[in-house]
């Protein structure tokens, strides 16, 4: 069991800045995220899109913002627990005990939920039959490409994941790339490689087509796709790879006994505490009168929540407000040389 002062759920910009705010007032924290890297929506949804409303930063991309925040919180040496989702939360005496789907257990007087709109999950095919082949013949990500050797593969999607895997798997397989329109939004150089493979005959491109059904009872034998003009076509397929990006799901948070209002958690604006003592919510996931879903609001919310955490983490100490410019304590915590 990992014991700490505060557990942050969500490593997006708001969660990252909360690490900083806890760190400068001398609190330790652990940070948990379902994705395989920090950055949240910034890194998953718009890594290359410029953001123009971060105070004092006229323009930066989601990736740049994430990297700057990681650099800013580096002195505090917070542990990141990625690729895992908090499944359970319960209270023992004055402490919250959290368990992730990887079996890690944490204990702290404070939990800060900075979960955005929930955890990211792959967007799945809408066809009902898709469920029963998921993991055996239908995949939304590739963990081990060797299982695809000498298989007939159909890949859906128009972005980089679809193009990259079409290229990679075409080395050893017959690949059909299916997309709902003729334009692909993946990187231009990847697309030209894919088009080259199409000429050579190792990739078959089918546009504008969408999937209409999956054939086979115990084993998927093929799929049926529909052209924009309504014409149907069958394709023999051993495996389907579908890349329609990620969707956000509130997930287990909804079952923790917190008040939830339209997928957001009401908080008081003095401490950002939820209806549960010691559980705070900041960033896009919290709501209060006048709430703006801006990164800068998440920073402010984290600063206040961190101060509220202090009282629960160190009940016998008095919190004293200090500025980073002048405080020797803060300079020590930042690891600055004297």
């Amino acid at each position, binding site marked *: 069991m990992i014991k700490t002062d505060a557990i942050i759920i969500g490593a997006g910009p708001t969660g990252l800045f909360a690490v900083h705010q806890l760190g400068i007032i001398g609190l330790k924290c652990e940070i948990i995220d379902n994705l395989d890297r920090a950055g949240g929506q910034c890194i998953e949804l718009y890594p290359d899109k410029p953001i123009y409303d971060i105070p004092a930063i006229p323009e930066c991309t989601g990736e740049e913002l994430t990297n700057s925040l990681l650099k800013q919180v580096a002195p505090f040496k917070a542990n990141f627990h990625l690729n895992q989702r908090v499944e359970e939360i319960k209270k023992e005496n004055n402490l919250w005990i959290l368990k992730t789907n990887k079996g890690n257990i944490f204990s702290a007087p404070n939990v800060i939920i900075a979960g955005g709109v929930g955890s990211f999950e792959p967007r799945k095919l809408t066809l009902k039959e898709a469920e029963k082949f998921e993991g055996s013949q239908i995949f939304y990500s590739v963990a081990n490409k060797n299982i695809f050797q000498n298989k007939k593969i159909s890949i859906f999607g128009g972005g980089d994941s679809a193009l990259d895997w079409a290229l990679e798997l075409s080395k050893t397989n017959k690949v059909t790339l299916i997309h709902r329109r003729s334009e692909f939004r993946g990187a231009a150089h990847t697309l030209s490689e894919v088009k080259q493979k199409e000429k050579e005959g190792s990739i078959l491109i089918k546009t504008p087509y*969408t999937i209409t059904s999956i054939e086979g009872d115990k084993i998927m034998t093929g799929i049926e796709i529909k052209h924009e003009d309504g014409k149907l076509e069958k394709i023999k397929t051993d495996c389907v790879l579908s890349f329609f990006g990620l969707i956000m799901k509130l997930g287990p948070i909804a079952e923790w006994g917190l008040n939830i209002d339209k997928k957001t958690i009401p908080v008081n604006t003095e401490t950002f505490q939820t209806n549960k003592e010691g559980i705070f919510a900041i960033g896009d996931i919290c709501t209060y009168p006048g709430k703006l879903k801006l990164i800068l609001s998440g920073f402010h919310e984290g600063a206040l929540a961190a101060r509220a955490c202090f009282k629960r983490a160190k009940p016998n100490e008095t919190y004293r407000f200090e500025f980073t410019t002048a405080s020797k304590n803060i300079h020590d915590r930042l690891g600055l040389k004297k």
Partner: protein
Amino acid sequence: MPKITYITHDGKKNTVEVPTGLSVMEGALQNNVKGIDADCGGSMACATCHVYVSENWLNKIEKIHDAEQDMLDMAYEPKKNSRLSCQIIVSNELDGLEITTPVKQT
């Protein structure tokens, strides 16, 4: 105030008044219209406000841009008349607009 009709995939109609200048997505959220999630809050980053626009209205709406088209690739069952409702801004010209929400957005 312009009236916008939100139709669920199984045909239930819900007509609400939406102030000009708001998006069709915001009109749905403010009136608790189900079927439009808008997870990203209107930053064209999630495709959960995807709607089908009835044919007779399609050409009255400002033309679709590349970024919106790219995002629609991620939507559930996009069609030729698909749009992201966060990108449709309500104006007096759109009074009476009818949109349908897809099956998977409930």
